[in-house]
């Protein structure tokens, strides 16, 4: 206890050093491994926002710097990086992580160092349910997303016999279970519930089971790299019923992998369709121009997460009379944000750090093209 205060005080009192007006913000996402596309997208989005705002902060007398970290989607790596981040006096905030399994243990560390986290994509309930003051997230929770998917599947698509596959990761299990609970409540029958191994490329075994059970919908809890393969192999086997998934599948990777087979796939996502608004379109164009890459859905969340953080930072600076505020002040300022208008989402945090305006979106792939077509959205 005492030593946390100590280090907290040190961080606040030792701001007189030579580079005291440098404020670093870390992105901490998976830059390698299976989630790297999204991890990269978040990083680039955040980078873009930071660079846009840099001159403004320069005018206020502060240099913003981005410090990207790779958590490799590995909790251990995340925690040890988090300690490095904690050690860096100049780091005020973290944009990340993506995987809930990494977010949860790493945030314990940020909490100790009063480093504000704005999370652009971890949906597990435990992320905010632990009541940490530094943890904020701008997307919806699994216990909102899963049921929303189930309602759509049962009520709109009329699914009665659902076959559920999940990837046996924290995320996959979480969303699949939330989906199953709601679907059963709504009267659908779960005709199968199977797990797969991440990283493999042949899921025919499980698909054979699905084939045999003749479901009228397949739900997959997991991410695009496995989801794409499952979709493709299922279609090869002649399974033409709708396949549904969560935000983990919301990536251009899905289309790259599944190709034409992606038709008739539905996803719920915590990420909105960036192209649906003019600001969003502009964002996507700028992004493309800047990085020579199409924006992913989560690019805008990286962008907005950074935006939210910088807004909080600015508020804190102002409240501190234009001087560098203590980290605690930034923590509080970020949590206090209401009605921040981002390119993709508006943000107002509740007392746990969840975004009151977070929505779950529904998309359908009608052709082999990303992003998929917008079907609808659900707000809390």
């Amino acid at each position, binding site marked *: 206890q005492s030593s946390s205060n100590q*280090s907290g005080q040190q961080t606040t009192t030792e701001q007189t050093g030579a580079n005291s007006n440098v404020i670093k913000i870390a992105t901490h996402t998976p830059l390698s491994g299976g989630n790297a596309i999204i991890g990269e997208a978040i990083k680039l989005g955040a980078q873009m926002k930071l660079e846009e705002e840099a001159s403004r902060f320069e005018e206020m007398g502060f240099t913003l710097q981005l410090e990207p970290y*790779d958590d490799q989607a590995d909790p251990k790596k995340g925690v040890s990086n988090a*300690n490095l981040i904690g*050690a860096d006096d100049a780091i005020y905030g973290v944009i990340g992580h993506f995987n809930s399994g990494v977010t949860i243990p790493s945030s314990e560390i940020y909490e100790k160092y009063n480093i504000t986290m704005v999370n652009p994509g971890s949906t*597990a309930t435990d992320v905010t349910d632990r009541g940490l003051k530094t943890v904020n997230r701008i997307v919806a929770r699994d216990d909102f997303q899963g049921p929303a998917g189930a309602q759509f599947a049962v009520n709109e698509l009329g699914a009665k016999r659902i076959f559920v596959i999940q990837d046996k990761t924290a995320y996959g299990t979480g969303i699949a279970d939330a989906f199953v609970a709601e679907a059963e409540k709504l009267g659908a029958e779960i005709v199968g519930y199977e797990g797969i191994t991440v990283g493999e490329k042949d899921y025919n075994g499980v698909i054979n089971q699905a084939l045999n059970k003749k479901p009228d919908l397949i739900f997959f809890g997991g991410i695009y790299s496995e989801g794409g393969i499952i979709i493709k192999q299922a279609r090869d086997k002649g399974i033409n019923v709708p396949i549904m998934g969560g935000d983990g599948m919301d990536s251009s990777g899905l289309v790259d992998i599944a190709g034409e087979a992606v038709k008739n796939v539905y996803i719920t996502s915590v990420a909105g369709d960036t192209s649906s608004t003019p600001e969003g379109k502009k964002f996507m164009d700028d992004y493309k121009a800047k990085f020579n890459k199409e924006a992913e859905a989560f690019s805008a969340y990286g962008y907005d997460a950074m935006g939210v953080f910088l807004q909080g930072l600015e508020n804190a600076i102002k409240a501190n009379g234009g001087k560098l505020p203590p980290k605690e002040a930034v923590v509080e300022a970020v949590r206090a944000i209401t009605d921040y208008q981002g390119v993709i989402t508006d943000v107002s945090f509740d007392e746990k750090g969840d975004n009151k305006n977070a929505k779950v979106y529904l998309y359908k792939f009608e052709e082999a093209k990303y992003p998929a077509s917008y079907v609808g959205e659900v707000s809390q």
Partner: protein
Amino acid sequence: MKEKLSMLLQKKSVQITLFTLFIIVTSSALYFSQKSVVSFLLLLSSLLILYYMNLKVVTKWLIALGLLFILIPFASSGGPAFHSYMEVATMVGIYIAMALGLNIVVGMAGLLDLGFVAFFAVGAYSYSIFATSQASNFMPFGEYPLSGSTFWGFLIIGGIMAAIAGVLIGVPVLRVKGDYLAIVTLAFGEIIRIIFNNLDRPINFTNGAMGIASITPPNLFGLEIIYPNQYYFIVLFILLFTIFAVNRLEHSKIGRAWKAVRENEIAAQAMGIPLVKTKLLAFALGASFSGIMGVVFAAKQQFIDPTSFTLLESFTILVMVVLGGMGSVPGAILGAALVTILNLQVLTELTNWLNQLSLQGVITIPDALTPAKLQRFIFGVLLVIFAIYRTKGLIPAKNKKFDVEQIKERAQKKAAISNIGSNDTDRVQA
């Protein structure tokens, strides 16, 4: 000139002076600069230098203890990076203990085990399940989570659980030899991980892939242990015990039996060494070190899930042992320290630095080559280079040197006392 210099360096007094100077410089650099990984690493490397100095073993140990218990924690406490240094040091300690355990199995007994991390997992889960409400899912009695003061007991329980797992796996596995053993242990390691990953159904033992969060931190006489510097000391104590035990084992009849089995099973058997028992002991002891550290790890992370116990992790520990020098205790220590520091600190710092350069426009790096993504690559290159240039390991295993004169003296003394053997010391006619 060169010779003179090396002569000078051989001198004890010179060595000590230089060494003291080195420590003072690095530790004060560490203490006063806000964040200097370099001085932290240099300070740590003083332990390595110490190892090579020609001082009495006892003196070396005393100095080392002083460094580890007082100077290193104190010097790094100077800046805000304190906890990150202690975190790295703690992880280093955890891996060293595991490497020492695996070194018994692979280095000494010659049994290639590719599933070693399973024992770490067993230790970690045995604490996590009982230090959270997880246990109430299947325990008919008791109240969970257990309090943090049970942590100390769990250190032993975790060790024992891992040892039991080692024996359970060992009994069937030891029928197979060589690389077949490697693959069977690999399979067992994976089986254990997959089972932990799926044991949320039908009864929720492990909470499956969601992992176990909010693990009760240890409690020492009412003091909650949550900071890396506190864990540092816990790990240090366990580690010292481990090193002591391993050292004793190596030069005992058990250590010799392990090596004999490694060198030639048939001859070892002919010397009356029971193969299965000897190998099982290696498995069990090696596993128990790992299990104990598993408990510490779980408490420190406050969250564990099966992704911490993958095959790659087993490989990494093996790499530490082989890189250090198979069968060599100081080697395993150095190997573990090096790989851990490299992975957790140096590579990350290096990539951060490169990243700063590219942000400042000093160098331009295409996106595909973003330094943060290159850690594995760099690690791979380093592995190959190390292995090629130090083929026998960083500190190759050395056989114990027996003091011939001393033994001879004792032999003569004994011969003088007992006249029975008086004529068998006579040489055979040459």
